[in-house]
């Protein structure tokens, strides 16, 4: 079966959720990845949303992190204070997904501004919950479209820290980055290419990265999406709202 690069990203992200108990879900691609994982590698995966929804079981594809269909039939719906305090800061979150307008080699993320903070060229949404998610989730998965505009040498603004000085050893921080080109892990805090998606060359990766990106010695080709994965995914988003 043929597949798009977005489908490859979602399928690859979902695979990394094998064995994960719960996931702090963002809307769009992360939501698809988590829903796919529930149907494949992680049937008991508990979906948690920053809106306060715990154990959602949505009857339709949610269009926002606070979609009413996430609430109906959820296990628990709680205040944001409780969600950020009792779940996130308490250390109960296994995996959280973050997106990025810019990401650097340490997995730090900018979602605040392009240009200077005081006089931005582009005002981006800001942190939302990203900075505390980056600091308190056990593991962070970053999903981002890779280009020299997004994989930058230096962030215009550090919204959410990656593997920077204060992190001790392997505790916390981003562990996986999935782009349309490949998958990255962190080796001593540096983003390192661990697999190339089918048909993608190393040069494509280098061309789409503003720094000289590290490549794992054992870099492999990402497994193509299986038919079961693709069918399950497409049933989740039949109108291809996010699978453009």
């Amino acid at each position, binding site marked *: 079966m043929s597949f798009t690069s977005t489908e490859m990203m979602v399928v690859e992200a979902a695979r990394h959720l094998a064995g994960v108990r719960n996931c702090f879900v963002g*809307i*769009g691609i992360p939501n698809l990845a988590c829903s796919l994982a529930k149907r494949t590698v992680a049937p008991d995966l508990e979906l948690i949303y*920053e*809106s*306060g*929804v715990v154990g959602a079981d949505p009857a339709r594809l949610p*269009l*926002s*992190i*606070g*979609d*009413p269909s996430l*609430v*109906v*039939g959820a296990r628990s*719906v*709680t*205040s*944001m*204070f409780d969600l*950020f305090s009792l779940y*996130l*800061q308490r250390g109960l979150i296994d995996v959280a997904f973050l997106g990025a307008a810019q990401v650097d080699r340490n997995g*730090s993320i900018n979602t*605040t501004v392009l240009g200077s*903070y*005081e*006089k*931005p*060229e*582009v*005002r981006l*949404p*800001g*942190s*939302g*919950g*990203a*900075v*505390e998610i980056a*600091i*308190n989730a056990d593991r962070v998965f970053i999903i981002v479209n890779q280009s020299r505009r997004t994989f930058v040498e230096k962030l215009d*603004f*550090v*919204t*959410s*820290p990656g593997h*920077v*000085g*204060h*992190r001790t050893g392997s505790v916390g921080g981003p562990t996986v980055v999935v782009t349309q080109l490949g998958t990255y892990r962190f080796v001593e805090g540096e983003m390192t290419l661990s697999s190339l998606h089918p048909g993608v060359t190393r040069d494509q990766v280098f061309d789409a990265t503003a720094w000289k990106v590290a490549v794992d010695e054992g870099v492999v080709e990402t497994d193509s999406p299986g038919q079961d994965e693709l069918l399950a995914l497409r049933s989740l988003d039949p109108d291809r709202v996010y699978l453009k």
Partner: protein
Amino acid sequence: MANSKVTSMREAIGSLVPDGSVVSIEGFTHLICFAAGHELIRQRKQDLTLCRLTPDVIADQLAAAGVISGLVFSWLGNPGVGSLHAVRRRIEGSDPRPLYLEEYSHFGMVARYTAGASGLPFFPLRSYRGSDLPRVNPRIVEIDDPYGGDPLYAVPPLNPDVSIVHVQRASAGGDAQVWGIPGCQKESAFAAGRVIVVCEEVVSDEVIRSDPNRTLIPGAIVDAVVVAPGGCHPSYAQGYYDRDNPFYLEWDVISRDSNLIDAWLEEWVYALDDHAAYRTKLGAERWSALSPGDAYSQPVNYGDYS
């Protein structure tokens, strides 16, 4: 009913929100009180500071109408769609005027409301380390753990002059019950100097008192109760109506052009007397398309101990 606080939106906004006020309008993804936002615009309020975790379309409308001069916030955008173009024009180009920003994260904003609601001079949280946010917002400060652990951060209390809180049902005295996503409706109410409760429907005291655990806001801290069914459109109210997604997409087009915004505000706000007129103008068909089916909670038995 004794001690009724029910009044019109016009009266509540007119008497409780003077120019220059710091105003909180929360509601996370649902219970966003557009009806109050429109009345602020209709009354041509000036120089308000809007406190809101997620300034979205309501903030774009208030910014375009010249009602707000600043935002205290943690995420701004048209959720699921893209940018707030009017807000961005003011931030990026001071067009037509600058917009003052005081920026936190979601947890930071929630912690600020919680401190404000609790009478605490600060709230501690594990966030911000390694982020540039404390550099651009000096009110986010590092603090020590008095027991010798790693330092953490603190944010100051947020005590809006007035909080406008949309709820599903309230008594005439202002006891308010919410279901679905509570967001920080409770904290923003307790933190505020004055509270306007806007509800989908007024219910009897008996309904409220049949389930006291559901009461998020007690009437004692409420100054006015406004009945505005549909008042969250285009956002939603759990159990009452759905989010109007096409509107958010339309707004992306409107908001790119200040002339289109002016025309929209004229047609949908200034030219209308109140939110009831807006509701009527939207039309029965649109409301019908947004109506969910029924899904009732199973009751609990509090017991009769008399």
